[in-house]
Protein backbone atom coordinates (compact mmCIF):
# COMPACT_ATOMS: atom_id res chain seq x y z
CA UNK A 1 0.00 0.00 0.00
CA UNK A 2 1.22 3.50 -0.76
CA UNK A 3 1.17 6.30 1.77
CA UNK A 4 -1.16 8.38 -0.39
CA UNK A 5 -4.15 10.28 0.94
CA UNK A 6 -7.02 8.28 2.40
CA UNK A 7 -9.37 9.08 -0.45
CA UNK A 8 -7.01 7.53 -2.96
CA UNK A 9 -6.74 4.35 -0.91
CA UNK A 10 -10.50 4.13 -0.60
CA UNK A 11 -11.11 4.31 -4.34
CA UNK A 12 -8.61 1.59 -5.12
CA UNK A 13 -9.40 -0.60 -2.10
CA UNK A 14 -12.01 -2.85 -3.66
CA UNK A 15 -10.24 -4.56 -6.54
CA UNK A 16 -6.91 -4.65 -4.77
CA UNK A 17 -8.48 -6.25 -1.71
CA UNK A 18 -9.80 -9.25 -3.66
CA UNK A 19 -6.43 -9.62 -5.32
CA UNK A 20 -4.60 -9.35 -2.02
CA UNK A 21 -6.85 -11.94 -0.38
CA UNK A 22 -6.22 -14.36 -3.25
CA UNK A 23 -2.50 -13.62 -3.07
CA UNK A 24 -2.51 -14.24 0.66
CA UNK A 25 -4.40 -17.53 0.25
CA UNK A 26 -1.89 -18.66 -2.37
CA UNK A 27 1.08 -17.63 -0.24
CA UNK A 28 0.23 -20.28 2.35
CA UNK A 29 1.16 -23.86 1.44
CA UNK A 30 -2.30 -25.05 2.55
CA UNK A 31 -4.00 -22.43 0.40
CA UNK A 32 -1.88 -23.18 -2.64
CA UNK A 33 -2.37 -26.95 -2.46
CA UNK A 34 -6.04 -26.55 -1.59
CA UNK A 35 -6.87 -24.17 -4.41
CA UNK A 36 -4.88 -26.32 -6.84
CA UNK A 37 -6.90 -29.42 -5.87
CA UNK A 38 -10.23 -27.59 -6.12
CA UNK A 39 -9.48 -26.07 -9.52
CA UNK A 40 -8.15 -29.38 -10.84
CA UNK A 41 -11.34 -31.12 -9.72
CA UNK A 42 -13.62 -28.51 -11.23
CA UNK A 43 -11.75 -28.64 -14.55
CA UNK A 44 -11.87 -32.44 -14.51
CA UNK A 45 -15.61 -32.36 -13.83
CA UNK A 46 -16.13 -29.95 -16.73
CA UNK A 47 -13.97 -31.66 -19.33
CA UNK A 48 -13.67 -35.33 -18.35
CA UNK A 49 -16.28 -36.53 -20.88
CA UNK A 50 -13.99 -35.33 -23.68
CA UNK A 51 -10.96 -37.41 -22.76
CA UNK A 52 -12.36 -40.33 -20.77
CA UNK A 53 -10.70 -43.44 -22.25
CA UNK A 54 -13.89 -45.57 -22.23
CA UNK A 55 -17.66 -45.22 -22.20
CA UNK A 56 -18.60 -44.97 -18.52
CA UNK A 57 -21.43 -47.49 -18.84
CA UNK A 58 -19.77 -49.91 -21.30
CA UNK A 59 -19.58 -53.32 -19.66
CA UNK A 60 -16.99 -55.89 -20.61
CA UNK A 61 -17.88 -59.46 -19.67
CA UNK A 62 -14.31 -60.61 -20.35
CA UNK A 63 -12.79 -58.16 -17.90
CA UNK A 64 -14.82 -58.40 -14.71
CA UNK A 65 -12.92 -57.17 -11.65
CA UNK A 66 -9.69 -57.35 -13.60
CA UNK A 67 -6.70 -55.75 -11.84
CA UNK A 68 -5.00 -52.67 -13.28
CA UNK A 69 -3.25 -53.35 -16.61
CA UNK A 70 -2.24 -51.56 -19.82
CA UNK A 71 -5.80 -51.33 -21.18
CA UNK A 72 -7.62 -50.50 -17.94
CA UNK A 73 -5.10 -48.44 -15.99
CA UNK A 74 -7.05 -48.67 -12.76
CA UNK A 75 -8.73 -52.02 -13.44
CA UNK A 76 -12.43 -52.75 -13.89
CA UNK A 77 -15.39 -53.10 -11.54
CA UNK A 78 -17.82 -55.96 -10.96
CA UNK A 79 -19.56 -55.27 -14.29
CA UNK A 80 -16.32 -54.93 -16.26
CA UNK A 81 -16.54 -51.13 -16.50
CA UNK A 82 -13.37 -49.05 -16.66
CA UNK A 83 -12.60 -47.55 -13.25
CA UNK A 84 -10.42 -44.71 -14.52
CA UNK A 85 -13.28 -43.47 -16.69
CA UNK A 86 -15.82 -43.79 -13.92
CA UNK A 87 -13.54 -42.07 -11.41
CA UNK A 88 -12.76 -38.99 -13.47
CA UNK A 89 -16.47 -38.65 -14.27
CA UNK A 90 -17.67 -39.68 -10.80
CA UNK A 91 -17.55 -36.21 -9.30
CA UNK A 92 -19.57 -34.38 -11.94
CA UNK A 93 -22.99 -34.79 -10.31
CA UNK A 94 -21.69 -34.05 -6.83
CA UNK A 95 -19.75 -30.96 -7.89
CA UNK A 96 -22.55 -29.65 -10.11
CA UNK A 97 -25.22 -29.98 -7.42
CA UNK A 98 -23.15 -28.62 -4.55
CA UNK A 99 -21.57 -25.81 -6.56
CA UNK A 100 -25.06 -24.48 -7.33
CA UNK A 101 -26.57 -25.19 -3.91
CA UNK A 102 -23.77 -23.58 -1.88
CA UNK A 103 -24.14 -20.00 -3.16
CA UNK A 104 -27.92 -20.33 -2.87
CA UNK A 105 -27.61 -21.47 0.76
CA UNK A 106 -25.18 -18.70 1.67
CA UNK A 107 -27.34 -16.10 -0.10
CA UNK A 108 -30.66 -16.84 1.54
CA UNK A 109 -29.23 -17.77 4.93
CA UNK A 110 -26.93 -14.76 4.88
CA UNK A 111 -29.63 -12.25 3.90
CA UNK A 112 -32.11 -13.53 6.47
CA UNK A 113 -29.41 -13.69 9.15
CA UNK A 114 -28.26 -10.12 8.52
CA UNK A 115 -31.85 -8.91 8.56
CA UNK A 116 -32.65 -10.70 11.83
CA UNK A 117 -29.44 -9.44 13.42
CA UNK A 118 -30.38 -5.90 12.46
CA UNK A 119 -34.11 -6.01 13.14
CA UNK A 120 -34.23 -8.17 16.30
CA UNK A 121 -37.50 -8.21 18.17
CA UNK A 122 -40.35 -10.70 18.12
CA UNK A 123 -39.71 -12.00 14.59
CA UNK A 124 -36.07 -12.71 15.48
CA UNK A 125 -37.08 -14.60 18.65
CA UNK A 126 -39.58 -16.77 16.82
CA UNK A 127 -37.46 -17.54 13.77
CA UNK A 128 -34.42 -18.42 15.89
CA UNK A 129 -36.55 -21.00 17.75
CA UNK A 130 -37.44 -22.53 14.39
CA UNK A 131 -33.77 -22.46 13.35
CA UNK A 132 -32.85 -24.24 16.60
CA UNK A 133 -35.55 -26.81 15.95
CA UNK A 134 -34.19 -27.55 12.49
CA UNK A 135 -30.64 -27.78 13.80
CA UNK A 136 -31.76 -30.31 16.42
CA UNK A 137 -32.60 -32.82 13.69
CA UNK A 138 -29.76 -34.80 12.11
CA UNK A 139 -29.02 -33.70 8.53
CA UNK A 140 -29.50 -37.17 7.14
CA UNK A 141 -33.03 -37.46 8.49
CA UNK A 142 -34.01 -34.14 6.91
CA UNK A 143 -32.45 -35.09 3.58
CA UNK A 144 -33.93 -38.59 3.52
CA UNK A 145 -37.44 -37.35 4.28
CA UNK A 146 -37.23 -34.92 1.36
CA UNK A 147 -35.79 -37.57 -0.95
CA UNK A 148 -38.41 -40.14 -0.02
CA UNK A 149 -41.13 -37.56 -0.67
CA UNK A 150 -39.88 -35.89 -3.84
CA UNK A 151 -37.31 -38.25 -5.38
CA UNK A 152 -33.58 -37.91 -5.93
CA UNK A 153 -33.26 -35.83 -9.10
CA UNK A 154 -31.00 -32.79 -9.32
CA UNK A 155 -34.15 -30.65 -9.27
CA UNK A 156 -34.89 -31.94 -5.77
CA UNK A 157 -31.38 -32.16 -4.36
CA UNK A 158 -30.27 -28.61 -5.20
CA UNK A 159 -33.14 -26.78 -3.48
CA UNK A 160 -33.15 -29.27 -0.58
CA UNK A 161 -29.44 -28.87 0.10
CA UNK A 162 -29.67 -25.10 -0.40
CA UNK A 163 -32.54 -24.92 2.10
CA UNK A 164 -31.16 -27.09 4.90
CA UNK A 165 -27.57 -25.87 4.61
CA UNK A 166 -28.73 -22.25 4.59
CA UNK A 167 -30.23 -22.60 8.07
CA UNK A 168 -26.92 -22.68 9.98
CA UNK A 169 -25.76 -19.75 7.82
CA UNK A 170 -28.61 -17.69 9.34
CA UNK A 171 -26.97 -18.16 12.73
CA UNK A 172 -23.51 -17.18 11.53
CA UNK A 173 -24.73 -14.10 9.65
CA UNK A 174 -26.94 -13.03 12.54
CA UNK A 175 -24.13 -13.35 15.07
CA UNK A 176 -21.70 -11.47 12.79
CA UNK A 177 -24.30 -8.72 12.32
CA UNK A 178 -25.01 -8.43 16.03
CA UNK A 179 -21.30 -7.83 16.56
CA UNK A 180 -21.40 -4.70 14.43
CA UNK A 181 -24.92 -3.22 14.72
CA UNK A 182 -23.93 -1.40 17.90
CA UNK A 183 -20.91 0.20 16.23
CA UNK A 184 -20.91 3.91 15.51
CA UNK A 185 -21.18 3.79 11.73
CA UNK A 186 -24.39 1.74 11.93
CA UNK A 187 -25.80 4.04 14.60
CA UNK A 188 -24.90 6.99 12.38
CA UNK A 189 -26.71 5.43 9.43
CA UNK A 190 -29.75 4.86 11.63
CA UNK A 191 -29.59 8.41 12.87
CA UNK A 192 -29.43 9.64 9.29
CA UNK A 193 -32.73 7.85 8.80
CA UNK A 194 -31.57 5.18 6.36
CA UNK A 195 -33.96 2.31 5.81
CA UNK A 196 -33.09 -1.20 6.98
CA UNK A 197 -32.48 -2.35 3.43
CA UNK A 198 -30.10 0.54 2.85
CA UNK A 199 -28.24 -0.16 6.12
CA UNK A 200 -27.96 -3.84 5.20
CA UNK A 201 -26.64 -3.03 1.77
CA UNK A 202 -24.30 -0.17 2.57
CA UNK A 203 -23.12 -0.77 6.14
CA UNK A 204 -23.57 -4.41 7.08
CA UNK A 205 -23.01 -6.50 4.00
CA UNK A 206 -19.38 -5.55 3.46
CA UNK A 207 -18.58 -6.34 7.09
CA UNK A 208 -20.32 -9.71 7.20
CA UNK A 209 -19.09 -10.81 3.76
CA UNK A 210 -15.79 -12.26 4.98
CA UNK A 211 -17.47 -14.50 7.54
CA UNK A 212 -19.97 -15.63 4.91
CA UNK A 213 -17.24 -16.50 2.41
CA UNK A 214 -15.47 -18.77 4.89
CA UNK A 215 -18.82 -20.22 5.92
CA UNK A 216 -19.68 -20.87 2.28
CA UNK A 217 -16.46 -22.81 1.71
CA UNK A 218 -17.21 -24.98 4.72
CA UNK A 219 -20.86 -25.48 3.70
CA UNK A 220 -19.59 -26.66 0.33
CA UNK A 221 -17.49 -29.42 1.87
CA UNK A 222 -20.35 -30.48 4.15
CA UNK A 223 -22.75 -30.58 1.23
CA UNK A 224 -20.33 -32.80 -0.65
CA UNK A 225 -20.14 -35.01 2.39
CA UNK A 226 -23.94 -35.18 2.50
CA UNK A 227 -24.35 -35.75 -1.23
CA UNK A 228 -21.78 -38.55 -1.49
CA UNK A 229 -22.99 -40.15 1.74
CA UNK A 230 -26.50 -40.27 0.34
CA UNK A 231 -25.18 -41.85 -2.87
CA UNK A 232 -23.23 -44.34 -0.80
CA UNK A 233 -26.39 -45.31 1.07
CA UNK A 234 -28.28 -45.71 -2.20
CA UNK A 235 -30.44 -42.56 -1.89
CA UNK A 236 -28.51 -40.29 -4.23
CA UNK A 237 -27.25 -40.67 -7.79
CA UNK A 238 -28.87 -43.65 -9.48
CA UNK A 239 -26.84 -46.18 -11.53
CA UNK A 240 -25.34 -46.39 -14.09
CA UNK A 241 -24.28 -42.74 -13.66
CA UNK A 242 -20.79 -42.86 -12.18
CA UNK A 243 -20.54 -41.42 -8.68
CA UNK A 244 -17.80 -41.77 -6.07
CA UNK A 245 -20.16 -42.62 -3.22
CA UNK A 246 -21.89 -45.25 -5.31
CA UNK A 247 -18.59 -46.69 -6.56
CA UNK A 248 -17.27 -47.06 -3.02
CA UNK A 249 -20.52 -48.72 -1.94
CA UNK A 250 -20.30 -51.19 -4.86
CA UNK A 251 -16.66 -51.98 -4.18
CA UNK A 252 -17.32 -53.05 -0.60
CA UNK A 253 -18.93 -56.33 -1.62
CA UNK A 254 -15.84 -57.50 -3.48
CA UNK A 255 -13.20 -55.97 -1.30
CA UNK A 256 -11.77 -59.25 -0.05
CA UNK A 257 -11.05 -60.51 -3.59
CA UNK A 258 -10.65 -57.24 -5.51
CA UNK A 259 -9.84 -54.11 -3.48
CA UNK A 260 -8.78 -51.84 -6.37
CA UNK A 261 -12.21 -50.49 -7.42
CA UNK A 262 -12.34 -48.62 -4.08
CA UNK A 263 -8.94 -46.90 -4.25
CA UNK A 264 -9.49 -44.38 -7.03
CA UNK A 265 -12.87 -42.99 -5.86
CA UNK A 266 -11.63 -42.83 -2.25
CA UNK A 267 -8.62 -40.78 -3.33
CA UNK A 268 -10.67 -38.61 -5.71
CA UNK A 269 -13.34 -37.73 -3.14
CA UNK A 270 -10.87 -37.23 -0.29
CA UNK A 271 -8.63 -34.98 -2.35
CA UNK A 272 -11.55 -32.74 -3.35
CA UNK A 273 -12.86 -32.39 0.20
CA UNK A 274 -9.38 -31.83 1.61
CA UNK A 275 -8.73 -29.28 -1.13
CA UNK A 276 -11.87 -27.32 -0.21
CA UNK A 277 -11.02 -27.38 3.47
CA UNK A 278 -7.40 -26.36 3.02
CA UNK A 279 -8.65 -23.46 0.90
CA UNK A 280 -11.26 -22.55 3.51
CA UNK A 281 -8.61 -22.67 6.21
CA UNK A 282 -6.21 -20.45 4.29
CA UNK A 283 -9.08 -18.11 3.41
CA UNK A 284 -10.13 -17.88 7.06
CA UNK A 285 -6.57 -17.04 8.09
CA UNK A 286 -6.20 -14.51 5.27
CA UNK A 287 -9.43 -12.80 6.34
CA UNK A 288 -8.71 -13.10 10.04
CA UNK A 289 -11.68 -15.27 10.94
CA UNK A 290 -11.59 -17.98 13.59
CA UNK A 291 -12.85 -21.02 11.74
CA UNK A 292 -12.92 -23.28 14.78
CA UNK A 293 -15.86 -21.28 16.19
CA UNK A 294 -18.23 -22.82 13.67
CA UNK A 295 -20.59 -25.49 14.91
CA UNK A 296 -20.57 -29.17 14.06
CA UNK A 297 -22.29 -29.93 10.74
Amino acid at each position, binding site marked *: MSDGPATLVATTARPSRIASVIREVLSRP*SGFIGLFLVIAHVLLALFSPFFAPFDFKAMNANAILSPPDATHWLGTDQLGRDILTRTIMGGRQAILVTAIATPLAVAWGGLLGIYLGLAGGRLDDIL*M*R*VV*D*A*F*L*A*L*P*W*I*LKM*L*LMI*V*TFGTGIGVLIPTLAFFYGIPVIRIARAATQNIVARDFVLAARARGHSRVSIMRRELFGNVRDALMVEGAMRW*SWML*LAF*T*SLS*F*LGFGVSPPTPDW*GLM*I*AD*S*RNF*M*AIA*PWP*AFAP*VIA*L*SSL*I*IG*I*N*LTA*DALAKALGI*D*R*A*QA*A*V*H
Partner: protein
Amino acid sequence: MLRIFIHRLLLGIATVAIVSGIIFAAVEALPGDACTAILQRDASGERLANCRRELGLDRPAATRYAEWAFGAVRGDLGISAHNNKPIASLVGDRLKNTLLLAGCSLALGIPLALFLGVLTGLRRDKFSDLALSTIAIFAMTIPEFVTATVLIFVFSIWLGWVPGIVTASASSPLSAFFPGIVLPVIVLTMVMTAHIMRTVRSSVIDVMSSDYVQMASLKGVPYWHIVFRHALPNALLPAINVIALTVGWLLGGVVVVEKVFNYPGLGHYMIDSISDRDLPVVQAIALIVAAAYVGVNLAADLLAMAFNPRLRTLKARSP
Protein backbone atom coordinates in the same frame (compact mmCIF):
# COMPACT_ATOMS: atom_id res chain seq x y z
CA MET B 1 -29.53 -18.62 38.47
CA LEU B 2 -32.83 -20.43 39.05
CA ARG B 3 -34.63 -17.89 36.88
CA ILE B 4 -32.16 -18.43 34.04
CA PHE B 5 -32.47 -22.19 34.50
CA ILE B 6 -36.26 -22.06 34.16
CA HIS B 7 -35.99 -19.71 31.19
CA ARG B 8 -33.58 -22.02 29.38
CA LEU B 9 -35.66 -25.07 30.23
CA LEU B 10 -38.77 -23.45 28.76
CA LEU B 11 -36.86 -22.45 25.62
CA GLY B 12 -35.64 -26.04 25.29
CA ILE B 13 -39.15 -27.41 25.67
CA ALA B 14 -40.40 -24.91 23.10
CA THR B 15 -37.71 -26.05 20.68
CA VAL B 16 -38.66 -29.72 21.13
CA ALA B 17 -42.32 -28.80 20.64
CA ILE B 18 -41.50 -27.03 17.36
CA VAL B 19 -39.40 -30.02 16.29
CA SER B 20 -42.30 -32.36 17.01
CA GLY B 21 -44.53 -30.17 14.87
CA ILE B 22 -42.02 -30.15 12.01
CA ILE B 23 -41.56 -33.92 12.21
CA PHE B 24 -45.30 -34.58 12.29
CA ALA B 25 -45.95 -32.24 9.38
CA ALA B 26 -43.08 -33.71 7.34
CA VAL B 27 -44.21 -37.28 7.88
CA GLU B 28 -47.79 -36.23 7.18
CA ALA B 29 -46.64 -34.84 3.82
CA LEU B 30 -45.05 -38.14 2.80
CA PRO B 31 -46.97 -40.19 0.26
CA GLY B 32 -48.71 -43.13 1.93
CA ASP B 33 -49.42 -43.75 5.61
CA ALA B 34 -49.22 -46.57 8.14
CA CYS B 35 -52.10 -48.40 6.44
CA THR B 36 -50.58 -48.42 2.97
CA ALA B 37 -47.42 -49.75 4.63
CA ILE B 38 -49.32 -52.52 6.47
CA LEU B 39 -51.57 -53.58 3.60
CA GLN B 40 -48.99 -52.95 0.86
CA ARG B 41 -50.49 -54.20 -2.42
CA ASP B 42 -53.98 -54.69 -0.96
CA ALA B 43 -54.15 -51.04 0.01
CA SER B 44 -57.24 -49.90 -1.82
CA GLY B 45 -60.95 -49.21 -1.39
CA GLU B 46 -62.76 -50.91 1.47
CA ARG B 47 -59.76 -52.50 3.20
CA LEU B 48 -57.79 -49.27 3.24
CA ALA B 49 -60.77 -47.36 4.66
CA ASN B 50 -61.31 -50.04 7.32
CA CYS B 51 -57.68 -50.04 8.33
CA ARG B 52 -57.61 -46.25 8.56
CA ARG B 53 -60.73 -46.28 10.73
CA GLU B 54 -59.24 -48.96 12.97
CA LEU B 55 -56.00 -47.04 13.50
CA GLY B 56 -57.80 -43.72 13.75
CA LEU B 57 -56.10 -42.32 10.68
CA ASP B 58 -59.36 -40.90 9.33
CA ARG B 59 -59.45 -38.26 12.06
CA PRO B 60 -58.12 -34.74 11.51
CA ALA B 61 -54.35 -34.23 11.63
CA ALA B 62 -54.51 -31.91 14.65
CA THR B 63 -56.25 -34.55 16.76
CA ARG B 64 -53.72 -37.17 15.78
CA TYR B 65 -50.82 -34.82 16.48
CA ALA B 66 -52.16 -34.08 19.96
CA GLU B 67 -52.63 -37.78 20.65
CA TRP B 68 -49.14 -38.60 19.37
CA ALA B 69 -47.48 -35.79 21.31
CA PHE B 70 -49.22 -36.63 24.60
CA GLY B 71 -48.43 -40.31 24.10
CA ALA B 72 -44.77 -39.49 23.51
CA VAL B 73 -44.62 -37.43 26.70
CA ARG B 74 -45.92 -40.46 28.62
CA GLY B 75 -43.39 -42.75 26.90
CA ASP B 76 -45.92 -44.34 24.53
CA LEU B 77 -44.47 -43.96 21.06
CA GLY B 78 -47.14 -45.95 19.25
CA ILE B 79 -47.02 -49.17 17.22
CA SER B 80 -44.60 -49.99 14.41
CA ALA B 81 -46.41 -50.28 11.08
CA HIS B 82 -43.89 -52.88 10.01
CA ASN B 83 -44.37 -55.60 12.62
CA ASN B 84 -47.06 -54.32 15.01
CA LYS B 85 -44.75 -54.24 18.02
CA PRO B 86 -44.66 -51.30 20.42
CA ILE B 87 -42.07 -48.79 19.18
CA ALA B 88 -40.84 -48.03 22.69
CA SER B 89 -39.25 -51.47 23.04
CA LEU B 90 -37.96 -51.63 19.44
CA VAL B 91 -36.34 -48.22 19.78
CA GLY B 92 -35.20 -48.93 23.33
CA ASP B 93 -32.95 -51.81 22.25
CA ARG B 94 -31.35 -49.76 19.50
CA LEU B 95 -31.02 -46.68 21.66
CA LYS B 96 -29.09 -48.78 24.18
CA ASN B 97 -26.72 -49.96 21.40
CA THR B 98 -26.21 -46.44 20.07
CA LEU B 99 -25.50 -45.22 23.60
CA LEU B 100 -22.86 -47.94 23.93
CA LEU B 101 -21.25 -46.82 20.67
CA ALA B 102 -21.45 -43.14 21.60
CA GLY B 103 -20.24 -43.82 25.14
CA CYS B 104 -17.13 -45.69 23.96
CA SER B 105 -16.34 -42.95 21.43
CA LEU B 106 -16.75 -40.19 24.00
CA ALA B 107 -14.70 -42.00 26.63
CA LEU B 108 -11.89 -42.32 24.11
CA GLY B 109 -12.35 -39.04 22.25
CA ILE B 110 -12.85 -36.38 24.94
CA PRO B 111 -9.59 -36.93 26.87
CA LEU B 112 -7.70 -37.31 23.59
CA ALA B 113 -9.24 -34.14 22.15
CA LEU B 114 -8.56 -32.07 25.28
CA PHE B 115 -4.96 -33.24 25.38
CA LEU B 116 -4.32 -32.60 21.68
CA GLY B 117 -6.18 -29.27 21.79
CA VAL B 118 -4.08 -27.97 24.68
CA LEU B 119 -0.90 -29.32 23.10
CA THR B 120 -1.51 -27.68 19.72
CA GLY B 121 -2.73 -24.47 21.34
CA LEU B 122 0.42 -24.12 23.43
CA ARG B 123 2.69 -25.03 20.53
CA ARG B 124 0.93 -22.74 18.08
CA ASP B 125 2.45 -22.69 14.57
CA LYS B 126 5.22 -25.08 15.58
CA PHE B 127 5.62 -28.29 13.58
CA SER B 128 3.56 -30.46 15.95
CA ASP B 129 0.67 -27.96 15.81
CA LEU B 130 0.70 -27.70 12.02
CA ALA B 131 0.88 -31.48 11.61
CA LEU B 132 -1.89 -32.25 14.12
CA SER B 133 -4.14 -29.43 12.91
CA THR B 134 -3.83 -30.62 9.32
CA ILE B 135 -4.60 -34.20 10.34
CA ALA B 136 -7.62 -32.84 12.24
CA ILE B 137 -8.94 -31.21 9.06
CA PHE B 138 -8.62 -34.54 7.28
CA ALA B 139 -10.31 -36.40 10.13
CA MET B 140 -13.28 -34.07 10.41
CA THR B 141 -14.02 -33.55 6.73
CA ILE B 142 -13.44 -36.85 4.95
CA PRO B 143 -16.85 -38.56 4.88
CA GLU B 144 -17.32 -41.26 7.51
CA PHE B 145 -18.07 -43.90 4.91
CA VAL B 146 -14.71 -43.28 3.21
CA THR B 147 -12.75 -43.57 6.48
CA ALA B 148 -14.78 -46.63 7.38
CA THR B 149 -14.13 -48.30 4.05
CA VAL B 150 -10.39 -47.67 4.30
CA LEU B 151 -10.27 -48.94 7.91
CA ILE B 152 -12.23 -52.06 7.00
CA PHE B 153 -9.82 -52.75 4.18
CA VAL B 154 -6.70 -52.25 6.28
CA PHE B 155 -7.64 -53.74 9.65
CA SER B 156 -10.20 -56.31 8.71
CA ILE B 157 -9.39 -57.62 5.23
CA TRP B 158 -5.67 -56.96 4.98
CA LEU B 159 -4.42 -57.43 8.54
CA GLY B 160 -7.40 -59.45 9.79
CA TRP B 161 -7.22 -57.97 13.30
CA VAL B 162 -10.87 -57.06 13.88
CA PRO B 163 -14.16 -57.94 12.17
CA GLY B 164 -15.26 -55.40 9.57
CA ILE B 165 -18.92 -55.85 10.33
CA VAL B 166 -21.11 -56.30 13.39
CA THR B 167 -23.17 -59.46 13.30
CA ALA B 168 -24.97 -59.16 16.66
CA SER B 169 -28.73 -58.46 16.52
CA ALA B 170 -30.40 -55.46 18.08
CA SER B 171 -31.46 -57.26 21.27
CA SER B 172 -28.11 -58.99 21.93
CA PRO B 173 -26.39 -58.32 25.26
CA LEU B 174 -23.86 -55.50 25.11
CA SER B 175 -20.90 -57.89 25.34
CA ALA B 176 -21.86 -59.36 21.93
CA PHE B 177 -20.80 -56.11 20.22
CA PHE B 178 -17.12 -56.58 21.01
CA PRO B 179 -14.80 -56.69 19.09
CA GLY B 180 -16.98 -55.62 16.15
CA ILE B 181 -17.53 -52.22 17.77
CA VAL B 182 -13.83 -51.31 17.57
CA LEU B 183 -13.77 -49.92 14.02
CA PRO B 184 -17.00 -47.88 14.29
CA VAL B 185 -15.70 -46.39 17.54
CA ILE B 186 -12.43 -45.43 15.83
CA VAL B 187 -14.26 -43.73 12.94
CA LEU B 188 -16.51 -41.74 15.29
CA THR B 189 -13.67 -40.86 17.64
CA MET B 190 -11.63 -39.42 14.79
CA VAL B 191 -14.33 -37.00 13.66
CA MET B 192 -15.29 -36.01 17.17
CA THR B 193 -11.74 -35.54 18.41
CA ALA B 194 -10.94 -33.27 15.48
CA HIS B 195 -13.90 -30.96 16.17
CA ILE B 196 -13.32 -30.63 19.91
CA MET B 197 -9.56 -30.31 19.49
CA ARG B 198 -9.87 -27.35 17.12
CA THR B 199 -12.12 -25.45 19.50
CA VAL B 200 -9.87 -26.13 22.48
CA ARG B 201 -6.84 -25.08 20.44
CA SER B 202 -8.26 -21.72 19.44
CA SER B 203 -9.54 -21.08 22.95
CA VAL B 204 -6.15 -21.92 24.49
CA ILE B 205 -4.48 -19.52 22.04
CA ASP B 206 -7.00 -16.81 22.99
CA VAL B 207 -6.47 -17.19 26.70
CA MET B 208 -2.69 -17.55 26.53
CA SER B 209 -2.43 -14.21 24.74
CA SER B 210 -4.80 -12.43 27.15
CA ASP B 211 -3.65 -9.68 29.48
CA TYR B 212 -3.93 -11.59 32.74
CA VAL B 213 -1.76 -14.44 31.46
CA GLN B 214 0.85 -11.95 30.23
CA MET B 215 0.68 -10.31 33.64
CA ALA B 216 1.25 -13.61 35.43
CA SER B 217 4.11 -14.33 33.10
CA LEU B 218 5.68 -10.94 33.79
CA LYS B 219 5.32 -11.52 37.52
CA GLY B 220 7.47 -14.59 37.06
CA VAL B 221 4.87 -17.30 37.64
CA PRO B 222 6.30 -20.60 36.34
CA TYR B 223 5.07 -21.54 32.87
CA TRP B 224 3.28 -24.76 33.79
CA HIS B 225 1.69 -23.08 36.78
CA ILE B 226 0.27 -20.42 34.41
CA VAL B 227 -0.97 -23.08 32.03
CA PHE B 228 -2.70 -25.28 34.58
CA ARG B 229 -3.82 -22.76 37.20
CA HIS B 230 -4.45 -19.58 35.23
CA ALA B 231 -5.17 -20.48 31.62
CA LEU B 232 -6.78 -23.90 31.32
CA PRO B 233 -9.75 -23.37 33.67
CA ASN B 234 -10.88 -20.57 31.36
CA ALA B 235 -9.68 -22.10 28.12
CA LEU B 236 -11.55 -25.36 28.58
CA LEU B 237 -14.95 -23.73 29.14
CA PRO B 238 -15.86 -23.48 25.41
CA ALA B 239 -15.10 -27.19 25.12
CA ILE B 240 -18.24 -27.93 27.16
CA ASN B 241 -20.51 -26.54 24.44
CA VAL B 242 -18.64 -28.22 21.60
CA ILE B 243 -18.74 -31.53 23.41
CA ALA B 244 -22.50 -31.07 23.78
CA LEU B 245 -22.88 -30.39 20.05
CA THR B 246 -20.77 -33.46 19.38
CA VAL B 247 -22.90 -35.64 21.65
CA GLY B 248 -26.00 -34.44 19.82
CA TRP B 249 -24.31 -35.28 16.54
CA LEU B 250 -23.23 -38.68 17.85
CA LEU B 251 -26.81 -39.60 18.75
CA GLY B 252 -28.19 -38.72 15.33
CA GLY B 253 -25.32 -38.43 12.88
CA VAL B 254 -23.91 -41.88 13.46
CA VAL B 255 -26.40 -43.03 10.86
CA VAL B 256 -23.83 -43.60 8.13
CA VAL B 257 -21.34 -45.30 10.45
CA GLU B 258 -23.98 -47.64 11.84
CA LYS B 259 -25.13 -48.50 8.34
CA VAL B 260 -21.59 -49.16 7.05
CA PHE B 261 -20.73 -51.49 9.92
CA ASN B 262 -24.22 -53.00 10.08
CA TYR B 263 -24.35 -51.87 13.71
CA PRO B 264 -27.92 -52.31 15.02
CA GLY B 265 -28.32 -48.82 16.49
CA LEU B 266 -30.84 -46.01 16.25
CA GLY B 267 -29.41 -44.50 13.06
CA HIS B 268 -29.39 -47.79 11.19
CA TYR B 269 -32.97 -48.37 12.31
CA MET B 270 -33.94 -44.90 11.10
CA ILE B 271 -32.69 -45.57 7.56
CA ASP B 272 -34.40 -48.96 7.45
CA SER B 273 -37.65 -47.42 8.70
CA ILE B 274 -37.51 -44.68 6.07
CA SER B 275 -36.92 -47.31 3.37
CA ASP B 276 -39.82 -49.39 4.73
CA ARG B 277 -42.07 -46.32 5.07
CA ASP B 278 -42.50 -47.24 8.74
CA LEU B 279 -43.55 -43.69 9.57
CA PRO B 280 -44.47 -44.04 13.27
CA VAL B 281 -40.93 -45.31 13.91
CA VAL B 282 -39.36 -42.47 11.91
CA GLN B 283 -41.37 -39.95 13.95
CA ALA B 284 -40.36 -41.56 17.22
CA ILE B 285 -36.63 -41.70 16.39
CA ALA B 286 -36.59 -38.13 15.13
CA LEU B 287 -38.27 -36.93 18.31
CA ILE B 288 -35.86 -38.85 20.56
CA VAL B 289 -32.79 -37.58 18.70
CA ALA B 290 -34.01 -33.97 18.72
CA ALA B 291 -34.92 -34.12 22.41
CA ALA B 292 -31.51 -35.59 23.21
CA TYR B 293 -29.79 -32.84 21.20
CA VAL B 294 -31.72 -30.08 22.96
CA GLY B 295 -31.30 -31.72 26.37
CA VAL B 296 -27.55 -32.18 26.05
CA ASN B 297 -27.08 -28.60 24.85
CA LEU B 298 -29.22 -27.30 27.71
CA ALA B 299 -27.10 -29.26 30.17
CA ALA B 300 -23.94 -27.86 28.61
CA ASP B 301 -25.24 -24.28 28.86
CA LEU B 302 -26.08 -24.75 32.52
CA LEU B 303 -22.73 -26.39 33.20
CA ALA B 304 -20.94 -23.51 31.48
CA MET B 305 -22.92 -21.06 33.59
CA ALA B 306 -22.07 -22.95 36.75
CA PHE B 307 -18.36 -22.70 35.94
CA ASN B 308 -18.45 -19.15 34.60
CA PRO B 309 -20.34 -16.66 36.77
CA ARG B 310 -20.09 -13.99 34.05
CA LEU B 311 -22.56 -15.89 31.86
CA ARG B 312 -25.20 -15.63 34.59
CA THR B 313 -25.37 -11.86 34.62
CA LEU B 314 -24.69 -11.12 30.96
CA LYS B 315 -28.08 -12.53 30.03
CA ALA B 316 -26.27 -14.37 27.26
CA ARG B 317 -28.45 -15.52 24.40
CA SER B 318 -28.63 -19.20 23.67
CA PRO B 319 -25.59 -20.12 21.58
